[in-house]
Structure formats: structure tokens, C-alpha cells
């Protein structure tokens, strides 16, 4: 059992939790992930590490309520326990030896982009951050990004906060204005990452993407998280989750991500109904 020592609602659909897991907190690096099960017989879901406190022994997760499992997780409070919590899994994001990096985050993906930006900043790298959300209500971690970024741009789809538009517009502009990035790191919805790569590829700027496919064990055993990279099958759990964005087959990844869409919708509605009944 792993205790929730802190819970904070960041916006109506996104929640932050700090989990007591000292061994994982000691080893976790930006870009790695954990797998959790909320309760006995629960589903295993991967969540990328959103931070860690090695001294306090806690691991931070930030998740969006998208299905039955995250809905159940969101109903837990400080002091409650998560049944299983395993990690750190996957290969850490490569952050060494970089001079100037643009970090592009979208939605809840910003939660995992933040520790990457913070680590780069700490290593003395110049960090430009572009983070995007659908609207003002969904903005998270603005101050934290500002604190570790030499340049900071916030976008909303509807223009209700920051600048109006998608993240690729300012990225394109920065590149055209002559910013020379060693690397662009992008974390967010698949469609966003696909278009970030479309923006950087003509300029030949190496681009790392963080993939978050369906997984079970997270240690290489099941192969459910496989994707095509440079024409070869890779496992996101052990070969990634970071990959060279130029080589990832995003269209296939999107189709695979939707494999259980109908099941998930059904399970989510069931869970929501369950909680509704409890409230009544």
C-alpha cells in the first residue's frame, strides 16, 4: 500500500498527488514512469512521473480524469492508500550536454514536461517553454514553468488566456527568428506531438517525443505498448517512453491508442454512475 500524502486539484479535470514511495523517489528521473493500481483487481495504468522529492520520499503524479481508473483515483483523498505503485520504469529523458532546448507541452502533458524543463534549467541549459491548453480554466503549472524558463509562452486554443492558437505557431516563429535549438522536447497529445515534429523536421531540429501507449506490466513482458519507430517495432516501456519524433509512426500509435475506446467509455460511465449513487 502506498499512501497519498498530498492531493491538490489543479483544474476540474486534472489532479496532483504526492505518493509515499521512498525507494522510487530515490531513483526516479524526468521522463520515467510508474504503474499503479488503485485497488485490488484494479487496472494497471502507466503515469509519467511529474516530480519527486528524494528527501521526503515522495513521488508526484499529475493525472487527467479520462476513464474509470483515473476517476476512481481522483476519489481518493490525502491519507488514503493506492494498492500498487511500481517504478521507476522506462529510460530517463536525455538531458545531458544540451545548451538550448525548447520544451513544448500540451494539456496534462505539461505535468511531465515540467520536471524535464526543471532539470535542464538546473544543468545550465537555456530553456524555452511553450505550453498549450484548450482554455483558461485548464491552465496548470504556469508559475512553475516560468520559474525554470528563459523564455515562456502560454497558448490557449480559444485565446481566453495567453496567446490564441496552437503551440506550433510560436515554435515556428522562434525557429524562423533564428533560435538555434539543440533539441525540442515535446510531451502532450499524440496529434500535437505529430504537428510539433512536422514543424521541426523541415529545419532538421532533433525532436524527442514522449509516448504514452496502453501498457500492462511496463517491464517489457507483454508487448502491448509496441509502436513502430523507423520501421521497427519498439516497446515504449523498455525502449522508451522517449523516442526520436522524426521516426515515430504517429498514425499507427493513434489507432492503437483507440483500441479499447468503447470498453473504456462503458467502464467510465459505470464508474461515474457508481459514484453518483454514493453521493445520493
Amino acid at each position, binding site marked *: 500500500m502506498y499512501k497519498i500524502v498530498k492531493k491538490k486539484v489543479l483544474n476540474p479535470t486534472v489532479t496532483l498527488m504526492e505518493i509515499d514511495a521512498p525507494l522510487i523517489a530515490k531513483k526516479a528521473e524526468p521522463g520515467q514512469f510508474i504503474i499503479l493500481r488503485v485497488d485490488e483487481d484494479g487496472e494497471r495504468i502507466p503515469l509519467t512521473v511529474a516530480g519527486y522529492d528524494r528527501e521526503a520520499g515522495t513521488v508526484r503524479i499529475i493525472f487527467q480524469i479520462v476513464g474509470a481508473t483515473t476517476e476512481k483515483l481522483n476519489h481518493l483523498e490525502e491519507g488514503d492508500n493506492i494498492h500498487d505503485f*511500481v517504478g521507476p520504469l522506462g529510460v530517463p529523458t536525455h538531458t545531458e550536454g544540451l545548451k538550448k532546448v525548447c520544451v513544448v507541452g500540451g494539456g496534462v502533458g505539461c505535468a511531465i514536461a515540467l520536471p524535464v524543463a526543471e532539470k535542464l534549467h538546473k544543468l545550465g541549459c537555456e530553456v524555452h517553454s511553450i505550453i498549450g491548453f484548450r482554455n483558461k480554466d485548464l491552465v496548470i503549472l504556469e508559475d512553475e514553468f516560468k520559474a525554470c524558463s528563459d523564455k515562456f509562452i502560454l497558448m490557449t486554443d480559444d485565446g481566453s488566456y495567453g496567446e490564441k492558437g496552437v503551440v506550433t505557431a510560436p515554435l515556428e516563429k522562434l525557429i524562423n527568428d533564428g533560435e538555434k535549438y539543440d533539441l525540442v522536447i515535446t510531451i502532450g497529445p499524440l496529434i500535437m506531438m505529430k504537428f510539433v515534429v512536422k514543424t521541426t523536421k523541415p529545419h532538421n531540429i532533433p525532436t524527442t517525443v514522449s509516448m504514452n501507449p496502453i501498457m500492462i*506490466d511496463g517491464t517489457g513482458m*507483454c508487448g502491448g505498448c509496441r509502436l513502430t519507430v523507423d520501421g521497427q517495432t519498439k516497446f515504449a516501456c523498455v525502449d522508451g517512453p522517449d523516442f526520436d519524433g522524426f521516426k515515430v509512426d504517429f498514425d499507427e500509435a493513434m489507432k*492503437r491508442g483507440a483500441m*479499447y475506446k468503447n470498453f473504456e467509455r462503458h*467502464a467510465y460511465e459505470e464508474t461515474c454512475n457508481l459514484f453518483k449513487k454514493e453521493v445520493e
Partner: protein
Amino acid sequence: MPNMSPKKAEMPTQDPNVRNKNFLEVAMGYTEEVAIEEAQRCLHCKTRPCVSGCPVHIAIPDFIKEVANGNFAAAYDIISESSSLPAVCGRVCPQETQCEAKCVRGIKTEPVGIGRLERFVADWHNSQPDAKIKKPEPNGHKVAVIGSGPAGLTCAGDLAKKGYDVTVFEALHLAGGVLVYGIPEFRLPKSIVQKEVDTLKELGVKIETNMVIGRVLSIDELMDNYGFESVFIGSGAGLPRFMNIPGENLCGVYSANEFLTRTNLMKAYKDDPSTPIMHAKKVAVVGGGNVAMDAARCAKRLGADEVYIVYRRSEEELPARKEEVEHAKEEGIIFKLLNNPVEILGNEDEFVTGMKCIKMELGEPDASGRRRPVPVEGSEFVIDVDAVIISIGTSPNPLIKSTTKGLDTQKWGGIIADENGLTSREGVYAGGDAVTGAATVILAMGAGKTAAAAIDEYIQNKNK
């Protein structure tokens, strides 16, 4: 006077057309009367060839003699001197190529049903009121075991019986390894595995789940910072292999590991599960081993109308246990032998719609001694399926190798270990699929047992 019946006493099983719709155990086990009757078929020959056929050298004729006399408790004691998981082995061992293959009765008629008798004895023992297990006197030495599959559990059990302070580290949320994620409920009920794990706990073995060694702690840390004097690696077979044919990443293509893990470990077969699985109507399973049979029979139970085993060689070369093949056939699994997939076909949403195969014929024997399958030109055809399960083996997980300095591995990734399980690192032992590549439960148990003896000797010598 021995019972001279040419045939083994029949094993009662659920009716094939009933069981292929449920996950309850297929074989229901001998009654006391039938077990005694079968035990009386043993001739108690002087040479005891069956013992040499057993990877853990159970004193087979001795336990059978006790069964014949109705002394089931004594029979259990004899088995448990050599085997820590008799209820498991009685169910999943390939007896027809091991003990029973050597049985003198088998020369002219059917061999003694050694596996069935082992199972009977273990189940009889488990049905008795729990005898309090005597915890051995601690000897003050700590050993770490990585992986809680058959190799790890056996190694842990043997060392705990000698008084070692053993901790087993398991990556998943539940102990048992392949016994819980791989082998289905209908072949090996999970309550049996749980019972074996509980017995180990009573012996004082600590089981730490959710621990991926190589990530959260390294082997060096276990030895340097946590006081483990020796480590046994039983981390299992690892990454599923795919065929590298077009269409393999379509929705509806599973590795057998994924399909079985969803079904068994995550219990996707139950009503309203939290983990989804496709309930496909027509399923092709590629491969001919025990894992392929398990996957096919699970798919059938999940509601498929048609399930095919697609295998590139002929029936004779099927690597699965004979009993599994027979059970699969009885349950209506269709064997498409001498066929090899060349492409998996999908629709615009990238869901599987079919699998293109080519017919094969057997040519000259290859390195494995089996006749090499050769494609028949122009013989391609399409089977109409909506799910494909690839069950063609695994390759070792590179995690422990890549995080343990000085641990030598084979070119193909298997950990190199000598006949006692010793690796290239002092105090570090390994066994099971992590060393041999995918093999059987009993071979892994044998390796765990051998390594436990070697670890004991190593620690005792070091502390002389």
C-alpha cells in the same frame, strides 16, 4: 500383486463443450480409490528409471508405494523432500517426456500415471486442515531472490528450510510469475499457486511485490547496501517475439504474453472486468507450444466461435504437451498445421480482418533435428479472423544485464550460468528461463533447487 491394467486410470474431466465456456479447472483429479488403484500399477522395478527422468529427482516409486497403501501423508512427505510445488507440477509437468517416458510399464502399455498421482497427493494434502509449519531456526544469512516464478519460489523455499532469511522481489503486483500471469485458471487454479506462496511465507520468506530489480534497486545495491550475501536471478523469459511481418501492430494483434496476462493476471475473463480484452469471434493463434494452446483455449472461453492454431510444422513437431493438444482439440480448437503467416490484414480503422498464410511442406532436418518447413510457392490463402495471437517465444529481458556490471550473457541475451547456477559474478546465481530461454516449469524449479544448494554451500564456506 500389481494392477496389470494396460491403461492408466482415467482422469475425470469436465465435458469439453461445457468447459470451453468456463474457466473452471478441466481435469478434476483422482478420488482416493482411483489413486490407490493407479498406484498399484507400479511394478517397483529395481532400476527406478522414472526417478532419473524427473528434473528434481522425486523418489517416485517410494511415494507411489505409500499411495498404494493409503498413506497419503507419508506420500506427501516423500514428494516434498524433492519438490516445493507438487500441486503445480502434478498439473503442468510434461510427464510424457520425463518420468512417465522412462516408466517400464510404458514399454508395452501405458506408463503409470505419475503426474496424476503427484497431483492427487498434493491436493489431498491441501484439503487437510492446515498443519502448523515449523519455522526453521534462523541461520542469520540473507539471500535475495529476483522473480517469484517457479525458479525463484523453489530456490526461496529450499533456502528458507535451511534457515536463511530470504526476500523474494517480484516486479508485478502478485507473486507467482508465469504461474499467475501465464498459465490459465482452468489448467492451474490460482488458489493453488497462492497456497504454495502462503506456505513459503509461513516458512519465513518475505515477498516484496512491485519491485523491478534493475530499476528501483540494482543487484549491487542489494549486496552492498542491504546485506544480501547472495542473489538468485529467476527473472524469467522476458520480451515476446514477433514475426516481423506486415500488419503485426494492427489493433487485435496480441502477443500471447499480453493476451494471457490480460486474461489471467488481470482477470479480464470475469464479468465487468477493469482490464479490457477483445472478445473476438474468430481468432488465429500462431505457434504450437503450451503457451499457444493456453492462448487458444482462453480465446475460445472468451466467446470465440472459431479458434485456429496456425503452426508451420506438422502435428508430430508440435512442442506442446500431448494432453494440452488433445484437450484443445476436444474443445473445438481447429489445427491449421503446415501453414505460416505472411501478413496480417486490417480495415481502415486498423483492426484485424484476416491473416494471409502460405502452405508449408517439410524438407530436410534442421539444426533442431526437426524437419525444416519450406513454403509451397503460390499457395497463399487468407483466413478470416478478427484477432491474432502471436505465440512464437520470447527473448530475455535485458534490464538486469544492463544494470549489473560484470554479469555475462549469451549472444542471444540469456544469462550465462554454470551447472550450479553460478554466474560470472561472485555470489550471484541464476536459473530458469532467464538462463535457458523459454522452457518448462519443472526445469526452472530444478534450476532453482540446484542454485539453492550452491548458494548454501557458498555462504557456509565463506563464513567458515
